[in-house]
């Protein structure tokens, strides 16, 4: 099976997201206002429902129930709504179980959220739009879904290769299948209409030098992926079979550990947003 054949046959996955790629685009425009965001996201009932549900969660604790999208946007602000749309969209895809990779139900989404939160802390300053690191974190492993559904039966061999040859999972995938989950994820995102600042850092998350002008973002993504593992958010077989490229993204050791620790506390808070509010 070629990469194109795999990515062109994703019937097992939810339909391609339409709102998030457009939202990433309009967030690049400094003139984007709340009306633009409302106009865009109100076209998707599932996202409207998710935004309202999270707006009413214990984390935001509104004084009275939020029942209207415009009200939610004015209460939380565009940046927070952007994050919620990311969460709702990624949750549609990442919440399931990937048995071929020993990834339990909900684990991939929690891992992705942890990477997103650590990216928010460590990503290069001046990233435009400023929510981009968060999006990269949430979507960085989306290729694993396609591989599980399209090539899941090959993973026993892939993990055997990892364990006998001491190579990283993405290298074993490439050697076995001809492509790895980063490449597959990037192709999916490109096909779905995401801009290159999303799919290129994801494509090169294990080889940041290849990402050209996005190499620092790709390097940060590699480090954030490691950081999520440190805080216990990296389910799956051979989850530590990682090779770190030290020459792209520079961060002081203490600052990195503090970011990872802070990421864990932010993760706890974010997960609370999915609990029903207490009123």
């Amino acid at each position, binding site marked *: 099976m070629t990469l194109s054949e795999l990515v062109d046959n994703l019937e097992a996955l939810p339909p391609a997201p339409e709102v998030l790629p457009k939202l990433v685009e309009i967030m690049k425009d400094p003139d984007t206002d709340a009306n633009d965001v409302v106009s865009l996201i109100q076209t998707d009932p599932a996202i409207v429902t998710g935004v309202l549900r999270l707006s009413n969660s214990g984390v935001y604790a509104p004084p009275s129930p939020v029942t209207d999208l415009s009200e939610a946007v004015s209460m939380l602000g565009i940046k927070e709504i952007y994050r919620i749309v990311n969460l709702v969209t990624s949750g549609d895809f990442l919440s399931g179980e990937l048995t071929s990779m020993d990834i339990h139900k909900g684990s991939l989404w929690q891992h992705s959220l942890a990477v997103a939160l650590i990216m928010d802390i460590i990503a290069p300053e001046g990233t435009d739009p400023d929510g981009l690191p968060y999006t990269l974190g949430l979507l960085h492993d989306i290729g694993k879904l396609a591989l599980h559904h399209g090539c899941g039966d090959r993973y026993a061999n892939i993990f055997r290769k990892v364990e006998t040859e001491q190579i990283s999972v993405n290298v074993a995938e490439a050697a076995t299948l001809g492509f790895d989950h980063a490449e597959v994820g990037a192709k999916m995102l490109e096909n779905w209409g995401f801009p290159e600042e999303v799919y290129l850092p994801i494509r090169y998350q294990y080889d940041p030098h290849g990402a050209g002008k996005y190499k620092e973002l790709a390097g940060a993504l590699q480090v954030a992926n490691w950081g999520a593992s440190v805080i216990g958010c990296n389910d799956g077989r051979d989850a530590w079979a990682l090779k*770190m490229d030290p020459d792209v993204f520079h961060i002081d050791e203490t600052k990195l550990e503090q970011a990872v620790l802070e990421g864990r506390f932010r993760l706890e808070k974010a997960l609370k947003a999915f609990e029903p509010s207490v009123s």
Partner: protein
Amino acid sequence: MSGSPSLPNFFTQKAVVGVGDLAVSNNTTVTISTYALGSCVALVVYDSVVQAGGLIHIMLPDSGLSLEKAQKQPAMFADTGIPLMFRNLMGLRVERKRLKAFVAGGASIISGADMFKIGERNIAAVKKMVNILGIPVIRADIGGVNNRTVHLNIATGEVELKKPTGISKFSLA
């Protein structure tokens, strides 16, 4: 009561220890478990005389990183969490000289700068603390690239270690 017929244990309870948390117990219906040990390290201890034990899931080696967070959650760090677990065990009449310990976890990346080898530093920090406290570690399963799951049965001191490559069982009694 001596001589009483033993009933099947319908009331087995599971205490799940999350990342940066700990549990101790002398309740013989309890199994203490921790899941998805990656670079984190679990220290499991058991005193067979009083049928009591504990498990801590350590995330980072040194509380110097954030004293504020160490106060909120001391079990995150080896240097604050392990002494806390032992203080809690002393309350269950555990005696240090009778304890036996098992260490698991500390997975590490295949290659990269030392700063990313957090699993190795976690293992070193745990070793240092058990040496200071004089606890004999009778078994260890550390390093590699796999996640691990560990269960401690408080009634028997039996430990079950689960890895993708298989399950092993042994006793700390």
